[in-house]
């Protein structure tokens, strides 16, 4: 814009540069302390997790660790059962992810590319269902799990998460597939491709970025689920890391160092995922809500 109105911007050339420096300085002066305060819980968790119990009781929660007890992590991992909980979480989240993305991409394709009676209604049903409060599903799902002999197994969590998350994923994928130019589908059909081939050879590859975004997001959601694991799985050896941490907490009542070591182990997968796939993660979140 400045070039359009050269006369109204007579300021010397150096001014914007110094102004920018001032702004950057101000930005850091304000944001660094704010972020430090914001992340205090995380820093304190880190510090507490390597302290000994005596150190915590004697010197209080604020003191710097007297010694670094890396054994806390071992204790949480072995005695605390984190190794089992962690494995279970992966065993639940990954298959559930495939179920939900596989079926949601099919549903999304059907709803994006075909107009038929009730297609709008089905679309809104998927969206609406994904916004329901979980409590309204809890009792029937619990009963159904019992009826199907799936109660207290890992399977019920896989199939429930996989099914429930179809709603949100269909919503996102359908909106994405709508943006793919129709010529691609027409051309493929001209070449004699069936609809299933179009789906396999064109829709899935073109949706990869959306699928990746959804995968990071859904993995985090399923991995972090507490409610369903609480209701559907009782045995310690089948618990995912969320309810597992709750039992760890009961087991190590006052041993905050062990609790926090467990906590830190529990967040590693999602934090690593976020660090490496931040872009996808954020895309997934904004795709779902922005429109």
């Amino acid at each position: 814009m400045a070039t359009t109105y050269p006369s109204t911007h007579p300021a010397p050339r150096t001014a914007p540069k110094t102004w920018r420096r001032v702004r950057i300085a101000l930005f850091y002066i304000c944001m660094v302390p704010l972020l430090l305060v914001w992340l205090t819980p995380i820093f304190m968790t880190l510090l507490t997790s390597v302290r000994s119990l005596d150190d915590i009781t004697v010197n209080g929660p604020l003191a710097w660790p007297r010694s670094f007890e890396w054994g806390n992590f071992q204790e949480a991992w072995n005695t605390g059962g984190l190794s089992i909980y962690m494995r279970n979480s992966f065993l639940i989240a990954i298959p559930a992810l495939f179920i939900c993305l596989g079926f949601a991409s099919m549903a999304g394709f059907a709803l994006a590319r075909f107009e038929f009676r009730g297609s709008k209604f089905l679309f809104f049903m998927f969206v609406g269902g994904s916004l329901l409060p979980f409590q309204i599903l809890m009792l029937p799902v619990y009963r159904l799990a019992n009826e199907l002999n799936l109660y207290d197994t890992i399977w019920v969590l896989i199939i429930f998460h996989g099914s429930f998350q179809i709603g949100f994923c269909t919503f996102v994928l359908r909106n994405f597939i709508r943006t793919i130019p129709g010529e691609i589908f027409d051309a493929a059909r001209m070449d004699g491709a069936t609809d299933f081939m179009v789906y396999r050879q064109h829709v899935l590859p073109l949706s990869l970025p959306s699928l990746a975004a959804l995968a990071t997001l859904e993995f985090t959601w399923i991995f972090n689920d507490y409610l369903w694991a609480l209701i559907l799985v009782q045995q310690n050896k089948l618990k995912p890391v969320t309810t597992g941490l709750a039992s760890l907490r009961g087991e190590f009542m006052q041993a905050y160092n062990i609790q926090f070591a467990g906590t830190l182990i529990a967040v590693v997968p999602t934090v690593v995922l976020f660090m490496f796939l931040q872009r996808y993660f954020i895309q997934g979140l904004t795709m779902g809500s922005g429109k």
Partner: protein
Amino acid sequence: MATMATPTPATTTVAEKKTRFPRRTNWWVPYAFLAMPLILYFTWVIGPMFFSLYMSFTNADGISRMDWVGFRNYRRLFNDDIFWVSFWNNVRWLIAFITIPIVLGLSLALIFNNDLPGTRFFKAGFFSPMVVSSVVIGVVWSWMYQPYGLINEMLSQLGRDGTPIGFLSDPKLVTWSIIGAGLWRQVGYVMLLYLAGLKNVDTTLVEASRVDGASAFESFRDIVLPLLRPVTVIIVVISTIDALRSFDLVNIMTRGGPFNRSSVLAQMMYIEAFNNYAMGYGAAIATILGLISLVLILYYLNRTMKDEMEY
């Protein structure tokens, strides 16, 4: 990609010519694609929703036969003090969730929207609580709130005397304390949504208004804020739904205590249904919760529907 639509060279054989017409789609094709997703979704989501509604009119206890009892569960519910405590606590969650994250999140988004060096790092920092499970947040914040925990120790270091504040034991304070932990998680999320919204704001409009003599605040109020309206509506809807869903933190930090003072509808439902085996009663609580959400969901769908029509 448009090249895919160009006709094949003139050397097409007869066999190829036959398929030059687009394959006709059979009427059942969309249903074939939808079959499995719909079966799963009906079995685990839509069906259970209606079954909950049905159960709320029965005396289900998980063991004996379910009998129809009409509106008895609902009558009992509206006379139950814990229900009203939980209900008003949900309202507190709601108010906190649609005010504080929006103010803080929007402020942060506006700062980060300038893309100064290092922004990415700060953004990730503020967002990071969102990546962590609510169990972890509950465990850590419970510890921070303890009588001799982090916050009380910090306050006494800063010169506060007297008995430690009972963040999780004072009935007046406890819900707000839990909400605090929830907000810590929510702010980063709202910030991200606003950042995405700000990307769609045409900066030339803002610049033009500045050239026309509007102050930074005026151009924000008159141009940016109205353009952010759709995002704000979505954020309000999402935050409300999150506030109604609040369960994890309450369950982990206090289990609704002391004396149910920090209970929310979801927590009350869990206790009634899975601790007291009053499943019909629990279903009634869930139905009320569902009805409140339904109003919002329908509003949200209605908005999306309007956008749909523009296609």
